[in-house]
């Protein structure tokens, strides 16, 4: 029995993570073999992940704490620090 595009897209995350049972995986791949639209969807889903990571990836941002914030953090700690 074929699964529908809707069912395929519902289970896409499980398919990608290898969490689908063997029988489900076969049905999933049978659908992909005859449905270029779902192949496109899968490809674009993968691309979405990649574009998302690249758009906000941590290394893309300057990483420095403003000196006044460093001072505020240390002052807050000294004010709150319990005696050793």
């Amino acid at each position, binding site marked *: 029995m074929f699964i529908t595009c809707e069912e395929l897209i519902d289970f896409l995350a499980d398919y990608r993570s290898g969490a689908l049972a063997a029988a489900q995986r076969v049905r999933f791949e049978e659908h992909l073999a005859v449905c*270029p639209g779902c192949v496109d969807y899968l490809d674009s*889903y993968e691309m979405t992940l990649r*574009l*998302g990571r690249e758009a906000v990836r*941590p290394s893309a941002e*300057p*990483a420095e704490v*403003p000196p006044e914030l460093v001072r505020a953090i*240390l002052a807050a700690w000294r004010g709150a620090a319990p005696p050793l």
Partner: protein
Amino acid sequence: MDDAPEATAPHRPESALVEALRAGDDDAYVQLVRQYGGPMLAVARRLLRNEADAQDALQDAFLSAFKSIRGFQGQSQLSTWLHRIAVNAALMKQRARTRRPEQPIEELLPAFDGSGHRRNSGASWPEDPTRTAEAGELKKLVADSIDRLPETYRTVLLLRDVEGLDGAEAAASLGVNENTVKIRLHRARQALRELLDPHMQGTRACSSPAKS
């Protein structure tokens, strides 16, 4: 005691830094903030999108880290431990903010007809959109689209796909179960894909059999 963060604090390797922190060495606190604070502030900025809230969250994160440094066992890198603390401080700040009503995620998910075929399934994407679009424009489009996601879903997407938390870590940070994280993540990715879809090019139709 070093009151001036611009001053040069001794730069110790990680294990010596942790020992110095446990011993209450003030220079070690300065080094920790200066050496590790930047990436932690960036995490808070990504999650909170508000500079004042991000700075508050960073302060909360360091106070929490300083208090619990004795419990740091070294099973993970210090940077990873601090990253998780920064994530949790930012999420705490996010929860404390006044919540605005969220757009229902369903409005951003793909639509299907009665036989399970995707409506508007005509467009296929170029193999590598970064080659066909201006890189800076595409990046901005994607970042803006992520910002259009309802906050609940945007947060899960950032935690899992950007900050690198696994399902269990994200679930613990958010106070939900792993299955909820899994469902929200899939919906967030689907919604982001739908938001990007009109900006991509090409067409191809779905020709799968209808549901029997």
